[in-house]
């Protein structure tokens, strides 16, 4: 018997060994994204309405040298020099950035958020340290890229990228300098060619604007992002898509535009959003004075609430007064029968979680160490934008609309959360154990629901054929917080409606920005 069994076993073992080893390779969904080949280059995007710039010419871009000047011919020779012997590594970079700079910068932003989305560990005395922008490398690292922080970071980057590209498109049309591969037949076009003029380079604009924004948003990553920026810009020279002067003009323009956004960010009140112990106490006494049970932190030791004054940050799509005006009405009183029933409902969800409720909870959890719910909606959008074959400027415009909606949703939601200061289900019934971590801020309204409502509204406008799908996703994201034991039904339902309302402001802007 052994004579038969042993060879069979050996074959089986060898086979499964090969099978398993081969399946170690994993691929990201956008690793092999197609090269950006826009169906429309949006040549008139220089007329689109910017977010902060007074107009596309606020930062001047000098006229480029003529293509028959010795300086320009030397630039063409630089490209030919690279193209003579491209390494595999260089070709990979061309391909990576060839899928689209807005896409890649968006992914890199999500990566930084995931890396920095870690709550600081407590001090020995039970208090918590706060990250310091002045010393980003000391523990706790700056920033703690929690959902409101990252919603704002995504929005500033996206809006600045958009404004910078509007300006770039203005000058592209004005100066109308053709891409190097069109000027010189010996320069190979390694990426899909379009009729879009190459001066200033849109990829360099994006590299410059993003690298400059890092000084404010992720100061510990300036070096990392600068390296990516250099790589992006060089890859376009190597690909025959831009010359050195296209790149330099673009990078400079990007950096100027970014400074306008960082100046706004320094005065948008986000710096004070952490509040002080006096502020935290005031929130508690305000809830108590209304006869409500105030929220408290369920972490041990109790952690100060996450950015309680974020609701006062200046929004992009409307003014501060609107934040207060569209604040949802109060949640059921903590002493009401309704609240008792809602707590009971969550207890029932959590008593016997199924693999499906766990799956939904984890699919949308986007908690500690992830790119947060706004990042998740960026990922959803990016994958659909790839299919839509947008130009870079339209990519940027749509990402700006999405992320301004997400940031403003964070502001409205945080204003609501800290106005009502409503406890989490687990605080009202400690038998409610959760399938994912409980975020350290009040329950009403649900952040996930507000973010998702806002994202679904603007994305449904941008890609109408997917409107129903976005809506379904938003509902599932909202529901996931009940399945996970994190939120009551009121938090989720009202949050979804509130988010849609915020998203409506982004749709209004989209209808009037000149792009549609």
């Amino acid at each position: 018997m052994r004579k038969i069994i042993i060879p069979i076993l050996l074959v089986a073992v060898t086979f499964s060994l090969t099978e398993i080893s081969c399946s170690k390779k994993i691929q990201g969904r956008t690793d092999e994204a197609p090269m950006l080949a826009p169906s429309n280059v949006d040549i008139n995007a220089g007329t689109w309405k910017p977010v902060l710039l007074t107009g596309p010419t606020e930062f001047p871009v000098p006229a480029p040298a003529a293509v028959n000047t010795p300086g320009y011919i030397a630039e063409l020779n630089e490209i030919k020099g690279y193209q003579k012997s491209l390494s595999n590594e260089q070709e990979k970079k061309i391909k990576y950035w060839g899928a689209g700079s807005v896409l890649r910068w968006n992914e890199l932003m999500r990566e930084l958020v995931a890396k920095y989305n870690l709550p600081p560990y407590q001090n020995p005395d039970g208090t918590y340290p706060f990250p310091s922008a002045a010393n980003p490398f000391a523990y706790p690292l700056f920033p703690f890229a929690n959902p409101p922080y990252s919603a704002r970071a995504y929005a500033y980057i996206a809006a600045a990228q958009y404004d910078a590209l509007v300006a770039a498109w203005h000058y592209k049309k004005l100066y109308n300098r053709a891409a190097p591969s069109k000027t010189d037949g010996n320069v190979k076009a390694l990426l899909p060619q379009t009729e879009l003029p190459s001066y200033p380079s849109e990829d360099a604009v994006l590299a410059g604007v993003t690298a400059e924004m890092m000084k404010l948003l992720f100061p510990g990553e300036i070096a990392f992002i600068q390296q990516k920026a250099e790589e992006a810009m060089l890859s376009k020279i190597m690909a025959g898509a831009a010359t050195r002067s296209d790149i330099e003009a673009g990078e400079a323009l990007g950096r100027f535009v970014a400074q306008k956004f960082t100046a706004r960010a320094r005065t948008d009140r986000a710096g004070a959003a952490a509040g002080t112990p006096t502020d935290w106490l005031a929130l508690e006494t305000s809830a108590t004075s209304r006869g409500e049970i105030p929220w408290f932190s369920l972490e041990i030791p109790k952690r100060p609430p996450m950015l309680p004054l974020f609701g006062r940050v200046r929004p992009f799509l409307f003014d501060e007064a609107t934040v207060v005006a569209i604040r949802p009405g109060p949640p059921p009183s903590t002493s009401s029968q309704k609240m008792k029933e809602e707590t009971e409902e969550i207890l029932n969800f959590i008593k016997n979680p199924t693999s499906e409720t766990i799956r939904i909870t984890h699919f949308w959890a986007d908690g500690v160490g992830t790119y947060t719910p706004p990042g998740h909606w960026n990922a959803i959008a990016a994958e659909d934008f790839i299919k839509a074959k947008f130009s870079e400027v339209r990519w940027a415009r749509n990402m700006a609309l999405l992320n301004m909606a997400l940031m403003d949703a964070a502001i409205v939601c945080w204003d609501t959360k800290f106005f009502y200061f409503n406890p989490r289900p687990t605080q009202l019934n400690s038998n409610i154990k959760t399938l994912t971590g409980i975020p350290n801020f009040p329950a009403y309204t649900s952040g996930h629901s507000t973010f998702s409502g806002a994202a679904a509204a603007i994305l449904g406008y941008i890609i109408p054929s997917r409107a129903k799908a976005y809506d379904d996703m938003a509902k599932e994201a909202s529901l996931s917080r009940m399945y996970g034991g994190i939120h009551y039904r009121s938090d989720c339902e009202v949050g979804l409606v509130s988010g849609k309302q915020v998203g409506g402001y982004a749709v209004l802007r989209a209808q009037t920005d000149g792009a549609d």
Partner: protein
Amino acid sequence: MQIIKTSVTRIVCLLIITMAACIPSKAQTEIDGIMMAKNNYCSGIMYNYSSWDQYWEGTLKRNNLNLGTVSTSMIAYMGNYGISDKLNVLFGLPYIKTKASAGTLHGMQGLQDLSLWVKWMPYEKEFGKSTLSFYAIGGVSVPVSDYTPDLLPLSIGLRSKTLSLRAMADYQIGSWFATASATYVVRDKVTLDRESYYTTQLHNTNEVSMPDASTVNIRAGYRTGRLIAEAVWNKWTTLGGFDITRNNMPFVSNRMNASMLGINMKYNLKKIEGLSLIANGNITLSGRNMGQASTLGGGAFYVIDFSSKKKKEKTSSTDKK
């Protein structure tokens, strides 16, 4: 070398160790120098309780007030069948339940992974009063329920399909023995419920590439057909993976390492032929990205003889019983 029916019970000690620490159970099936006799089937139930309140976040040892003590209870059904005196097939199927004593996280429970092992003794030689034997052991493990590996440390396992290859040597002199083995564990990628995760970089996929692992296992003690008492040292090393970052949650592809020391006892009852009782316990000496678990367990196993001849407790020519 000794052929003893209840050897399968030995699976358990390491099985438990690994689980307590959230390493999949598969690796440690037959890891001793004992074979079931031909046509004998030994099976039984094993219970283990394991807990920790200190863990290694990377190499930093810490506690977590939001977890308190993390405990794992396991009940497993296990079996070992002797195809021949030199070739055994073994399996194990655990049900696991986890709990955190503090914080708000929900414990998890469910059937974990089915392990199947083939154990082959190609060489056995007597030198006077002592015996030397060599073994080749291969095993696979497959998750049998859709539990999530993405709620560590409360997940009941890592949900990776695995393939293990082990070489082992056993030396017995009189009633004393020593066994040493080394195992290479190939681990298949794992699928999460979410579409993105961060290790040392962002991955936009629900699939996680798992680093392979190795174990070294050394055990020594007293062994007769009636009683086994041994000390066991085991070292699990993940060949790759990354450290938990400061105050982050553990992740399925972390570099999980642990060295553990334990004792096992097995006693074959005189009154009921074929029934044996086992007990074990162990502690974690050092680790990385794992809990410092202590484990206690016990179980009962019974042998059924399917052969025509009466040889439930067949001993080889070199039996030192």
